[in-house]
């Protein structure tokens, strides 16, 4: 799974360099371009599929990034919900309900999503490497970063977090379950606005992979 385009670019200069080394250099430059100063507010649309449900559920709202390990997920449609993550403390508030608290540890998905998201927005390569095995791929219409968790925290297991984007902006994050199918897809920014009412459960968006 190496990208011909990028290898061609570097090929003349680094004939002996391994693909991994190239990946590393690419990832560094990608991370530098993705880094943002907090606070950031990013619109999102999240599509989720559950074996308990007959149809996918879709919620939308904004992600508020307030610095390392501090993230809020504010759902505005179709109901109000606010999840605040501070360190590994998770608080869930819903309209007219008492607040619930739990730990990131209890959920492998959250436990992996947050560090990944946080590392991308701070451009923290070390944090990313600590939590995941990474591989980056550059496609003609954008890039794809695959993050395989080194350890999972909760009872459920997730196989991979796949982030896709174009230029200096991530467009989509997919959480892939053990069988390789996506259990959740989060579209970000412009991709969220383009998603429509019932977005499909894949992370391909405008960048179709062959």
């Amino acid at each position, binding site marked *: 799974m190496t990208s011909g385009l990028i290898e061609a670019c570097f090929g003349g200069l680094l004939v002996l360099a391994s693909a991994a080394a190239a990946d590393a250099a690419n990832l560094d430059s990608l991370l530098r371009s993705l880094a943002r100063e907090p606070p950031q507010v990013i619109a999102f649309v*999240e599509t*989720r599929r*559950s*074996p*308990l*449900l*007959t*149809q996918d*559920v*879709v*919620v939308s709202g904004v992600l508020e990034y307030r610095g390392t390990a501090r993230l809020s*997920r504010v*759902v505005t449609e179709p*109901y109000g*919900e606010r*999840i605040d993550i501070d*360190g*590994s*403390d*998770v608080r*869930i508030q*819903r309209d007219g*309900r008492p607040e619930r*608290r*739990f*730990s*990131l*540890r*209890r*959920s*492998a*998905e*959250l436990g992996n*999503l947050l560090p990944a998201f946080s590392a991308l927005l701070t451009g923290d390569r070390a944090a990313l490497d600590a939590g995941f095995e990474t591989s980056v791929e550059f496609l003609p219409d954008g890039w794809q970063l695959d993050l395989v968790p080194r350890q999972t925290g*909760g*009872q*459920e297991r*997730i196989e991979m977090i796949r982030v896709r984007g174009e230029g200096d902006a991530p467009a989509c994050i997919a959480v892939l379950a053990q069988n390789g199918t996506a*259990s*959740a897809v989060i579209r970000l920014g412009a991709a969220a606005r383009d998603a429509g009412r019932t977005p499909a459960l894949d992370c391909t968006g405008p960048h179709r992979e062959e």
Partner: protein
Amino acid sequence: MPAARRRSTAPARTVKNDGGALAWFGLWLGLLAALLVGVLHTLRLSTDLRLFLPQPDSPARALVLEGIGEGPAARLLMIALEGGESVELARLSHVLVAALRADPEFQLIANGAGDIPSWLVEYRYLLTSGFDDRPLDAAGLRAALEERLQDLASPAAPALESLVPSDPTLEIVSIASRWAPRRSPRTIDGAWFDDAGRRALLVAETRAAGFDPDGQQRALDALESAFRQANADTRIRMTISGPGRFSALMKERTQREAAWLGTAATAGLVVMLIVAYRRWPVPLLAPLPLASAALSGLAAVGAVYGDVHGITLAFGFTLIGVAQDYPIHFFSHQRAGLAPIANARSLWPTLATGVAATGIAYAVFLASGVTGLAQIGLFSITGLVVAGLTTRYLLPRTIGDEFPDPARSPALARLGRVLSLPRLPPVAYAAIMGVCLTAVLVAPGAAWQDDLGALTPVPQELLAEDAKLRAEVGAPDPRFLAVVAAKDAESALQRLEALDSSLQELVNTGAIASFDHAARYVPSGRRQRMRQARLPAPAILEMAVTRAAKGMPFRDGLFAPFVADVNRARGLEPLTPAALRATAQGTLLEGLLHQRDGNMQAVIAFSAVADPRSLDQWAAGAGPETILIDLKREVSALAAAQRGRILRCLAVAAVLLVVVVGIALRSARRVMRVVAPMALTTVAILALLRVFGVPLDLFHLISLVLAAGLGIDYALYFERSGDDRDERLRTLHAILVCSLSTLMVFALLSFSSIPVLRSIGITVALGVVLNFLLAIVLSRRPAERA
């Protein structure tokens, strides 16, 4: 020093006059060794403080006795991990819990990661209060399903997916949070942390009682080794706090100090004996009567009681300290030309009077009705009698007669001039006595130390840290608890349930932070049956589920496990506390609900009591079966009662002592001369302590008894020495050696950092000096003025 070495170094030179001396010495050591082996085999050291407390006279006191060191609050250890990233601290916290969960030293170890045994899950519809106020119907289910749908649309979905089909209202989650010990602190990575998020917090409940320093030490060692194994990062520190930690710490400190004080005292004693007698076997022989006293005292206590309390040992050894003087009198009177046997025979009446007077006085403790005190009495009496008899019959057979006569020492002769000091006139005696008594009576400040906490010299900062940690993990306040009596577990649980709303009111008004009792974990059978009766039948519930899920995207038949579980719950036999025994919560429950004298006793624990008055008012309205216990108040009352008992014993002992001395001396004047120094010394020490604002504790009292015993002996020997110059000098020599060696030992103790040792040291040191001086000016026979 090992007996074998003593034997091998026993010189032949000094015993050349008597070939049997070495044999007698060997026989004596052999007897001691046999006794030692016997004692080690039969005697068990007990740490149960109740041996030392009087029979409780009220149910509250009975509980206090039970609670001292044994209640759950006293067995809790608070553990803090700090100095690393919170993620690493949390990881370590979970590793510790996993490592120690199965450890036999711990009943419970918790860090916030709640887990409920899987077999308990089926009881959830009997345990939950979720349907007490509203029924399990379509409307309630609809609200729950709407929430679950939102959960499934959130990142929490994967964690909840397995739960929703059988438990759509998440009752197990609310039970788990109810079962999480008390007020839960904040959690990071599933582990408790302090509010600042810097320290990971854990709570462990030891199996050993709080006052059992050895058991606590084992638990602490297990903790330390688990911590070392789990933690490669040397920056991370573990702090352990709690009564058990303090008791282990104090034992360690006391032992360390006692060890160096003992070493220093032994070295000083050896030097002093060599200087005094110029015969180096003396330091080998002089300890033998005391060693015999100690071992036979222990053997006697072991034979009668089986257990001996640590305090018995401490006090008992203090009291038989007077026996160290017996061989010294013998050595000081030994000189060339006097057969040792004859010497012992001539000292015997005085020695025997001393033994009898103190022994009979201590006999009062035998009748005190308190096991610990009776043990002290038995130990001391046996010890003193054995020390007297060995000094009389064994010691003389182990030496030759080649001792320098102190009466020939010019230095002593010069010192002997103190014996020509004028006697203290009775008027002056009465005046000093009057001043001292007045001081005792009118000195300001508390006369008695009733705060037992003041005796445990736990550094103040550790106590403050303990209180802070306790508040952070919501551990029960060790001072307050309420007890509800009932005829069986079921009625106890019903009573607790009836008190729930008034307790919640205390929380709401801020009087307490939280409360805990058995019914929070296991509701009464009546309540469980009531809940069962309200659970809908399967057909009805199925209809309700269908109605509730209408228009929602849940798969058909998804909630069949839920309907089945509710139906199973309807047929369950209600959960009893007994059924929970084998679980982590069961041990917790055991502390909150237990059998006592054929009745059930439920404990209500409070955390962070802010307003004791409200608690009092609550207790007053809670019915006659509920007693609120303020441990601090009760323990003080117990200590006061105990002190009264000891004081009465001492008063009787004083009278007996005078009677025995009177029988031995057969003269009121001679009795006066012997008793007067001791009486004035006792009152003077009391006056000094009072004037310097030192509240008296039990250790002062016991030390006063030792001082009095020493005083009686000094006076008896001075009184015995009569007019003969040489005899007076020998007596002076003996009493100088006795008092200086005793003074040295106890002066060392008075520099200890441990209040208990200091109390004993100061009191006895003062007693030795005063008794010595007063014996010189009061106990000599007036004839010498002629």
